[in-house]
């Protein structure tokens, strides 16, 4: 209590002094992050209004106004990338969320040998993204892929299938490969959420005659909402930025059917040397991620992690 009064009395001076200390303590972090994120981001915004067709520093960069944006908006390849990215994001996040809740509930069961399940589930997540993609790219090979061998030898399929050979199938395969790796993350979030739900809630619900399904809908899911909100935001943003898994598995093919926005921006900038247009495309991703998280924060209320602490 005495502390409180002291704090009130000396507040302005103390706040100013602490402000100065905080400034010095934060300068190194600000320099690192602003130098590598802030400054390049500003440059990208500026470049999106210029025609930049060379990586050389002395090359001319004429100002072209909204031309780059007008160009991408009338470009069918851009809209194809938008469609692919939305499709990937929706099914990838949706599947991970549904399977992740199931897997989290499964890991929560008081089973014997539960540790083995948890160890097995964390491993796909630990595998580097590129290794995961390179591995499944081979497993799905149409001529000698082990996944094909497994499906045929167990009688699940009659013949070898070219998973990455046609558009829709390639896209769905890439989604499944990413789901295989990242569902673990969702599951561990769900498991942690389940562990803090008071057991008494279930006990009294059971006394009231609520069945297992009813308990899941009325207790588990509502109380998991804050955790699911965080995971939803993390995974949607991550999915919308997708690059690595697609680059390694299909390079965006066959025939651009798996080209995401990030991959399209990469190709436009580094293969076609159209850096201005590439900048404009990459800013579309930034805008989408920003508006998405603002939307989530609004829609899901103050249940986000950062808001709480």
């Amino acid at each position, binding site marked *: 209590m005495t502390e409180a009064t002291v704090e009130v009395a000396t507040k302005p001076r103390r706040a100013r002094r602490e402000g100065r*200390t905080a400034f010095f303590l934060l300068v190194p972090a600000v320099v690192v992050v602003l130098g590598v994120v802030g400054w390049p981001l500003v440059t990208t915004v500026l470049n999106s209004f210029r025609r930049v067709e060379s990586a050389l520093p002395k090359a001319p960069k004429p100002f072209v106004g909204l031309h780059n944006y007008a160009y991408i908006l009338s470009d069918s390849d851009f809209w194809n990338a938008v469609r692919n990215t939305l499709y990937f994001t929706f099914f990838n996040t949706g599947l991970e969320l549904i399977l992740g809740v199931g897997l989290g509930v499964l890991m929560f069961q008081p089973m014997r040998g539960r540790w083995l399940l948890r160890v097995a589930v964390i491993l796909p997540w630990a595998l580097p993204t590129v*290794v995961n993609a390179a591995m499944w790219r081979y497993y799905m090979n149409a001529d000698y892929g082990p996944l094909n061998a497994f499906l045929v030898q167990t009688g699940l399929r009659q013949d070898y299938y070219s998973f990455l050979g046609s558009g829709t199938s390639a896209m769905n395969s890439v989604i499944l490969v990413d789901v295989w790796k990242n569902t673990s993350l969702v599951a561990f*979030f769900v498991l942690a959420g389940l562990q803090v739900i008071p057991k008494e809630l279930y006990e009294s619900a059971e006394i009231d005659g609520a069945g297992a399904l009813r308990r899941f809908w009325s207790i588990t899911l509502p109380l998991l909402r804050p955790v699911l909100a965080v995971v939803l935001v993390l995974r949607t943003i991550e999915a919308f930025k997708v690059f690595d898994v697609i680059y390694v598995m299909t390079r965006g093919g066959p025939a651009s059917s798996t080209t995401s926005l990030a991959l399209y921006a990469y190709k436009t900038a580094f293969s076609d040397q159209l850096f201005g247009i590439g900048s404009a495309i990459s800013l579309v991703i930034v805008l989408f991620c920003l508006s998405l998280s603002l939307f989530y924060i609004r829609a899901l209320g103050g249940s986000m992690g950062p808001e709480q602490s």
Partner: protein
Amino acid sequence: MHRVRWWVYVIAAVVIFIALAPIVWLAIASVTPSAALLEKPLHFFPAQIDLSRWRAIFTQGQNSPAGAFRIAMLNSLIIAFGTVVISLLVGIPGAYAFSRLRFRGRRTALMSFLATYMVPTIALVIPLYLIMANLHLLNTRIGLIIVYSSFVTPFVLWSLSNYMDGVPRELDEAATIDGAGRLRILWSVLLPLTRPGIFAAILFATLLCWDEFLYALIFTSTTASKTIPVAVAEFSGKFSTDFGLVAAGGVLAALPPVFIALAFQRYLVAGLVSGAVKG
């Protein structure tokens, strides 16, 4: 607690198979003779074991694909280590400021650091490429260390300031009464008590660096600077028929993160979800 029904065990067994089989077989493929990999029907357990790829990785020169994996592995280790050191050096003072000092714009500053997570690599990589070219940092490990510090630092700031919030302020005050300055308090009171948090942050930072691909793909093209994800991606694209060596490189690349995940599962899971399940 209820008794777990038999079918729950069946589901668990299926899940374990789906999660483990692809990884286990990657290791098997790395010691399967090349000809056996192309057999039809495929024998999932080879009749003979072929260790030649592993021998090549550890003994061949750096111009061979196998030797390049070894160098790439070393590069990844050095880059992860350098990044973790820099991020902790700049992140710990910052985390202290966020946790212990009141100042205007505190919340905004913290949120701005977090917001960098929303900026995709592709939106930064073009200007960074030009900057790095000017500073002669392309194809260097130090270049990647600086770039990686930019995404690891916000994470360190965020997780450690959260962790420090959990250390009672009374301890600071007691130390102040004993005449300790801020630096002294940070060093002798807060850091020892946040050791588990720092440890978890180191693990995560290592995983983040280890997995990064796009920056490394664009900024490094020489064997001397390439990281292991770039090496694996390039090799699997170029020589797609020699899957055995891709598998060996993949297993090599997966060893550090898999070891971290297995040995420190509790730390990781606790650190991962600490922000999400509070309150």
